[in-house]
C-alpha cells in the first residue's frame, strides 16, 4: 500500500503513541498505531475494550486531553500533519466539519435542554454560516437523509422524547451536516438492540455509498465489521496486529489473535458443542510485554516473539504484526 504513495490517502496515522499519566502508572493507550484510510473507503477497527481504538481516533480529532498526551508518531490528513502547531489549529477548524465523529451513547452527546432542531441548526449556522431559515430547511433535509419520518415534527422534540435508535440517527444527521469527507463512528451501535443496530448499519452503509464518504467504524463486534467494511484493522493492547481487506482477513486470518477472535465469536448460523475461548486476559498497558503483547496467550508463541514485532506487509496487501505467522505464511506452513 505504501508503494502507491503517489496518490496520498485521505488519512494516514503513523506510529502513534499516546500515554495517560494516571496514579497507577503511565498507561500506554496507543503503542505505535499505524493505519490509513483511502477516499471513499470504510475502515473497520476491531478489538476488545481497552485495546486503544477510541484513543487512536481521538488523537485524529485532537481530542486527547490531560491526563493523556500524544508522545510520538504522526497523523496526516490529505498529506498535512495534524500534530504540529499549524496542524492543531487546522484540526480545530475542520473538526465537526470536514472530519466528524459520532459516539456510542447519543444521549451524552446530545444536549438534553435543547430541541433536536436547535442542535442541528446550531451546527449549520456555526460552521457554514447559514441563516435561520436556510439552516432549518437543511435540517429537515438531513433528518430525511437519515430516514427519520415526519422530520418537521421531530425538529421540535427533545432528545429524551426519542428512542435510542432515533437519537443515533439524529447524531448521524449532525455528523453529516457539514458534508464531511471523513466520518468516524466510535461504537455507534453498541448501546442499541440488534434490530435497531441492523437499521443503523444499513443506513451507514447506504450513506457511505451515496455520499462517497470515508468512514472509520470502531466496534468490538466482528459481525458489524463484516457487514460494512472494505478493510479491517484488528487492534490488541494498543497496537494494530493485522490489517487488510475484509474478505481476505475474515477468510484467512493470519495473526493468532485474529484467528482466536474469529473462533471465539459464536455464529448464529452454526452450532458447536463448546465455545472456543482465548485463555488468559489482555495485558496491563502500564507495563506491557516487550515483544508481542499477545504472546502470553498465544499457542504459537516462540522465542522470537519476545522481540518487538513490526507490521509487515504481505503479498496480498495485508499487514501483519506477528513474526511467526508471517514466516509461516511466506513459507506456506500452516500454524498447527
Amino acid at each position, binding site marked *: 500500500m505504501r508503494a502507491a504513495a503517489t496518490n496520498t490517502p485521505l488519512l494516514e496515522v503513523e506510529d502513534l503513541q499516546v500515554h495517560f*499519566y*494516571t*496514579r497507577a502508572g503511565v498507561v500506554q493507550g496507543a503503542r505505535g498505531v499505524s493505519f490509513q484510510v483511502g477516499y471513499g473507503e470504510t475502515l473497520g477497527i476491531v478489538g476488545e475494550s481497552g485495546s486503544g481504538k477510541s484513543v487512536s481516533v481521538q488523537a485524529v480529532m485532537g481530542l486527547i486531553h*490531560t*491526563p493523556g*498526551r500524544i508522545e510520538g508518531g504522526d497523523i496526516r490528513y490529505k498529506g498535512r500533519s495534524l500534530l504540529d502547531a499549524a496542524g492543531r489549529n487546522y484540526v480545530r477548524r475542520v473538526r465537526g466539519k470536514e472530519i466528524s465523529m459520532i459516539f456510542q451513547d447519543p444521549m451524552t452527546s446530545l444536549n438534553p435542554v435543547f430541541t433536536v432542531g436547535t442542535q442541528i441548526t446550531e451546527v449549520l449556522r456555526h460552521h457554514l454560516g447559514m441563516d435561520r431559515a436556510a439552516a432549518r430547511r437543511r435540517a429537515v433535509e438531513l433528518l430525511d437523509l437519515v430516514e427519520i419520518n415526519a422530520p418537521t415534527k421531530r425538529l421540535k422534540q427533545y432528545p429524551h422524547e426519542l428512542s435510542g435508535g432515533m437519537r443515533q440517527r439524529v447524531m448521524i444527521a449532525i455528523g453529516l451536516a457539514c458534508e464531511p469527507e471523513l466520518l468516524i463512528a466510535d461504537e455507534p451501535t453498541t448501546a442499541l438492540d440488534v434490530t435497531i443496530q441492523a437499521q443503523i448499519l444499513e443506513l451507514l452503509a447506504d450513506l457511505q455509498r451515496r455520499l462517497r464518504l470515508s468512514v472509520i467504524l470502531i466496534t468490538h463486534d466482528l459481525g458489524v465489521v463484516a457487514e460494512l467494511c472494505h478493510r479491517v484493522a484488528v487492534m490488541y493492547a494498543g497496537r494494530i496486529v493485522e490489517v487488510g481487506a475484509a474478505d481476505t482477513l475474515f477468510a484467512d486470518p493470519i495473526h493468532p489473535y485474529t484467528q482466536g477472535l474469529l473462533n471465539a465469536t459464536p455464529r448464529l448460523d452454526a452450532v458447536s458443542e463448546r465455545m472456543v475461548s482465548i485463555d488468559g486476559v489482555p495485558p496491563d498497558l502500564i507495563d506491557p510485554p516487550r515483544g508481542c503483547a499477545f504472546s502470553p496467550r498465544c499457542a504459537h508463541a516462540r522465542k522470537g516473539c519476545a522481540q518487538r514485532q513490526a507490521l509487515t506487509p504481505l503479498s496480498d496487501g495485508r499487514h501483519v504484526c506477528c513474526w511467526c505467522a508471517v514466516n509461516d505464511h511466506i513459507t506456506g506452513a500452516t500454524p498447527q
Partner: protein
Amino acid sequence: MTQSIQLETALTDRRHEWLAKLRELGRELWRDKAGLIGVVLMTALVLMALVAPWIAPHDPAEQDLTARLRPPVWYEKGTWDHVFGTDHLGRDVLSRAIHGARVSLLVGLLVVVLAGGFGVVMGLMAGYLGGRMDAFVMRWIDTQVAFPGLLLALIILAVIGPSLTTVVVVLSLNGWMVYGRMTRGAVLAVRQTPYVEAAEIVGCRWPRIIFRHILPNLTSPLLTLAILEFARIVLAEAALSFLGLGIQPPATSWGLDVAVGKNYMFMAWWLVTIPGTAIAITVLAINLVASWMRLISDPQEREKQFARHMTRRLRSKVGQRRKLSAGQEAIK
C-alpha cells in the same frame, strides 16, 4: 487443601499494602499544601489539648491579684512569666488558651459522636426500611429543623442549668438532623446498587446489609460532614459559653474568656484576641482538613489532581529540554 492454606497465608500478609497506601496518601498530602497546613495545625491542637497540664506554664484557674491585666511579653510591662499577659483576676492568658482547647475539642468530639451516631442510625433505618419508618423520621427531622435551635437550647438550659454535659446534650439534639438527612439520601442511592441486591439475594437480613454493605460505603461523605460539623460545634460551644449558657467558671473555655475579655477590650485587647484567635485557627484548620478529605475521597478528583501534577512536571521537563537545545544552538 493447599488452596485454602495459601488463601489463609495470603489473607494474613497483606499488611504492606496498607503501608503503601498510607505512604501514597502522605505524598499527596505533601503536594496539597493547604491540606497539609490543616492537618499539621489540627494535630498540634489535639496534642496541645492532650498534654495541656504539662505544657501550660500556670494553672489556668490560679489567680494572682497583684498581677492583674499584665500585657503580653513584647510590651514594656510584660514578663516572660506571662507570655500573653494576664486577665482581670491575674490568670495566665496563655495557660487558659491552652486549656481552653481541651473543652472545645472535647465538646466537639462528643457532640459529633453522639449526634453523628444517632443521626446516622436514624438515616440508615429511614433509607433502608422505607415506608412508615421513613415517613416518621423525615417528619421528625422536618419538625425539628423548623424549630429554632437557640430557643430549644435556652429552654433546656433554663430547665437543667448550664454545664458541660448540658452543652453536649443541647448541641447533639440540635445537630443530628444533618446526618440523618444525608445518610438517608446516600442509602437510597447505595441500596439500588447491584451488590446490595446481591447481598439480599444471598439471604442477608437487613441489619447485616445496612452495617456491612451500606454503611462502609458512606464513610467518606460522612467523615467529611462530621469534620465540618466539628468546626460548627466548636463555634457553637464558644457562642453558648460567651452567652453564659455554656461552660461555667472556674472551668476554662475560649468562648467564656472572650465574654470576660470583652469588658476590658480597650484596656487589654489581648484578653479577647488570644482566645478569639484560638477559635479562628481551630475552625480554619478543621475546614482545611475537610476540604482535603473531600478531595481525596473522590477518586475522579484525585486522578485529575494527579494528572495536573504530572502535566506540570512534564511541561517543565519539555521546557528544560528546549532551553538546553537553545543553549547548545547558541554555543554553535
